[in-house]
């Protein structure tokens, strides 16, 4: 079932497309500008070979469409098929981003409506759809914070507060914006430690980045107070929307006191993850911050038509054109499909599913913080009676043998042997029960036959990998000699 690199099928002369002749009198090519290597190393294949190759390797992937994918923090929910049809409609898939606005009214209407829907769902006054991913949404927000402070003449605000439980993107974002990261501790209930927060707030505070529900899967019990404290210190509150799937119709971040947040359309709003992307990291903010948003945004003209505009004090473009439009079509479709009650049912069910997994497993896999959780639960892979060398990694790999994608492991960093399980609302009780039973069975194996866990997986396309070899002697492009050496070792 292995499939060799596509380059091994190459033979001189083959081609996989049927292209037209130029059909015009040729113009001489400028010889001195031509490449000299005749595309050396580029493969030559026919369409049947290309299709077979990429079909075969696809079957070596686990995906939402093949099984349960309880990857905490990633919201691996089902991607509705109607959305795929929608995004491929010719007026969406075949429209040029720079064609005249008069020729793009359908696309602009969709973007305008999506801006409004996202604003309403989150309690924000303004939305920009441009950022391409959550991390870019974060960068957008922090740049907006910076621009706002500078615009007020406040040049001292160089610090961004980040809880110790935060996603790695948060501190990386702050650094990318040229700001300094100050870490805030979590308390015993998994909330931000208010004393530590107070200690770290200062006139240098540009703002705080907070995920709520946080990465422990817990709702910040003091969220209103946190926002007030940050505001009182002159800072702004950034909401990491990675966990927004928990609170649709449950709470609006804008009403809780956040000034800015990003939406992961590829999490909460069902656009597919694509094996790593594309996503969309649309952002929403208060009216106060709206003038700094990246452009273009869409507004309605007095005549009812739609047009692009750039906010007056915009930090500038985050990328070319208007955002990952194909993702916007899917998100718009999802919201229009679910409506207000449907979205609330999404979050309610996501939280129900997570709590069900929690109560059915926490006697064996201790919960990091013993509280009702939101859309995900963080457990610890520390099984009573199991040998010490049975680690969370082994449990995760053993799940693969039973046909499950493992949860997120070793995150958040503050929880030892963390197992972060996010079932989402699109899984049935039947699937959850099967997963729970399997987790319990693995706990038994951990005690009785720990070697089975160390050896796992044995039923996947490959077994555990030599990751050190990959990093120490990197082979990062097709190189027959290097691969032959590897295979000869």
């Amino acid at each position, binding site marked *: 079932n292995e499939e060799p*690199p596509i380059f091994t099928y190459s033979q001189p002369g083959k081609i*996989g*497309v049927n292209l037209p002749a130029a*059909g015009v*009198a040729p*113009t001489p090519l400028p010889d001195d500008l031509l490449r000299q*290597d005749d*595309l050396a190393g*580029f493969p030559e*294949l026919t*369409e049947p070979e290309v299709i077979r190759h*990429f*079909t075969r390797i696809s079957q*070596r992937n686990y*995906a939402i469409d093949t099984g349960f994918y309880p990857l905490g923090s990633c919201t691996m929910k089902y*991607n509705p098929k109607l959305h795929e049809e929608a995004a*491929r409609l010719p007026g*969406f*898939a075949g*429209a*040029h981003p*720079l064609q*005249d606005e008069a*020729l793009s009214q*359908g696309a602009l209407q969709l973007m305008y409506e999506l801006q409004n829907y996202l604003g309403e769902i989150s309690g924000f006054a303004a939305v920009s759809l441009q950022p*391409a*991913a959550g991390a870019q949404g974060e960068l957008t927000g922090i740049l907006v914070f910076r621009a706002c402070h500078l615009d007020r003449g406040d040049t001292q605000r160089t610090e961004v507060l980040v809880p110790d439980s935060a*996603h790695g*993107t948060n501190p990386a974002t702050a*650094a*990318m914006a040229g700001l300094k990261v100050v870490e805030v501790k979590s308390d015993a209930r998994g909330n931000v430690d208010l004393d530590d927060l107070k200690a770290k707030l200062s006139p240098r505070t540009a703002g705080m980045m907070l995920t709520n529900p946080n990465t422990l899967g817990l709702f910040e019990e003091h969220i*209103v107070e946190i926002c007030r404290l940050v505001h009182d210190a002159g800072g702004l509150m950034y909401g990491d929307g990675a966990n927004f799937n928990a609170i649709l119709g449950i709470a*609006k971040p804008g009403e809780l006191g956040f000034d800015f947040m990003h939406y992961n359309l590829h999490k909460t709003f*069902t656009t597919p993850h694509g*094996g*790593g*992307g594309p996503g969309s990291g649309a952002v929403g903010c208060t009216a106060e911050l709206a003038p700094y948003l*990246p452009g273009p945004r869409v507004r309605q003209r007095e005549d009812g038509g739609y047009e692009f505009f750039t906010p007056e004090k915009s930090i*500038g*473009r*985050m*990328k070319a*054109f208007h*955002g*990952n*439009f194909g993702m916007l079509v899917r998100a718009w479709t999802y919201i229009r499909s679910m409506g207000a009650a449907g979205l609330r*049912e999404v979050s309610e069910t996501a*939280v129900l599913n997570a709590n069900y997994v929690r109560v059915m497993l926490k006697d064996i896999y201790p919960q990091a913080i013993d509280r009702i959780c939101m859309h995900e639960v963080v457990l610890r892979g520390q099984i009573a009676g199991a040998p010490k060398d049975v680690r969370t990694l082994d449990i995760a*790999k053993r799940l*693969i043998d039973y046909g499950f994608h493992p949860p997120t492991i070793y*995150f958040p960093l503050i929880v030892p042997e963390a197992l972060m399980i996010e079932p989402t609302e*699109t899984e049935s*009780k039947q699937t959850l029960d099967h997963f729970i039973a399997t987790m319990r069975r693995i706990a038994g194996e951990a005690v009785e036959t720990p070697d089975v866990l160390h050896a796992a*997986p044995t039923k996947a*396309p*490959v077994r555990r*990998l*030599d990751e050190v070899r990959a*990093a120490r002697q990197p082979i990062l492009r097709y190189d027959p000699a290097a691969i032959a050496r*590897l295979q000869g070792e």
Partner: protein
Amino acid sequence: MEAGMTHYIPITDADRQAMLQAIGVETIEDLFVDVPASHRFPPLELPPPLSEPELMAELNRLSEANAHNRKYSIFLGAGAYNHFVPAAVDQIIRRGEYYTAYTPYQPEISQGTLQAIFEYQSLICALTGMEIANASHYDGATALAESAIMALNVVRNRRKIVVARSVNPQYRAVLRTYMQGLDVEIVGDENPGATIADALAQVDDHTALLIVQNPDFLGRIHDLRGLGAQVQARGALLAVHFDPIALGLFQTPAEAGADIATGEGQPLGLGLAFGGPYLGIFTTRQKYVHKIAGRIVGVTKDVDGRMAYVLTLRAREQDIRRERATSNICTNQGLMALASAVYMSLMGKRGMRAVAEITYHRAHYAAQRISELTGYRVLADQPFFREFVVQCPRPVAEINAALREQGIIGGYDLSADEPHLGHAMLVAVTEMNTPAEIDRFVAALAAI
């Protein structure tokens, strides 16, 4: 339970009751006690939900309210090009195994995505002549901006970036957005008409990077051989932003001596898609492998000795390095990288060359025909690839409005970006513009 509210949610009323009981609460609402009561369960003012037939009808209406390439002849480019998209590309990327998978963090069950990305990296290296490529950035603009970040990290203690005026203005804008917090000076593109030589002249011993684009925003192809050496001699790096279709024929960034080469992968089978999702291509030299942002796939073995693929050199990435990471990139454009890999595999050596040649010959045919028209002047003093500047007798907006009535989307109006060129239109021609279509376009221009 309302019909239609649950088609994506397989939890029945009976399940819900059983699960609440297991959890030990009475109602769903009890799960949300941590949410401040005053803010709990806010109403959402959204339009009522649409059924699937209604939704498809409304989507179809919105779609048809746009011009698109099945209805219009498109002579507009400026960073997004109407190249042919083989059906096989979509056949592959709409496989659930690919598009509903996450980032391949569990390599044992992600070999499909991993192998595809490895092959993407390999194809990009072969196309560009560069030594390594990452698994993608958001688009060409952000890839270019990341080249500046990388240069600042490679060439320590230099805070000046020189960018040629002929780089896509949207890309230059994004570069400035990305740099705004980093105490960096960006120069080189101030003067209309400034050349690459003018930009090179600004590279000094404070400069970390020179960024040029080839073919440039106005479509011109430059001979960049030796440029890398000149820049490196001043202690700086050279970044070349390339067009992947042009590389079927023309000089590679490697031949220019580039340290970093970035590109917009959109023409590689992604379609127009009203601007996205596209694909940011990022390549550099092997020696900068620890400085490159984003994900990289490498080859290794499993415990049984089988060849396998894995995300590697992960210590560079934000989830491990956190505030010491040079980029916060996490989600990328993986599925688009796959699409471009399928495209490049289908095209192969012959196809990549053929697309470039057809594009080149047709663009030159169009330029020649337009240059024969009274009142139009084609700026073709330098070699060009698929785009060229036409100076028009009237404002481009007026001309495009007239073309629209003929089912033609005219070229990009340069009046905002390059006002010194007058009523200038940037015309793009690809293998999708048949000779007959070009003739119609020319006739329409003549009739305006």
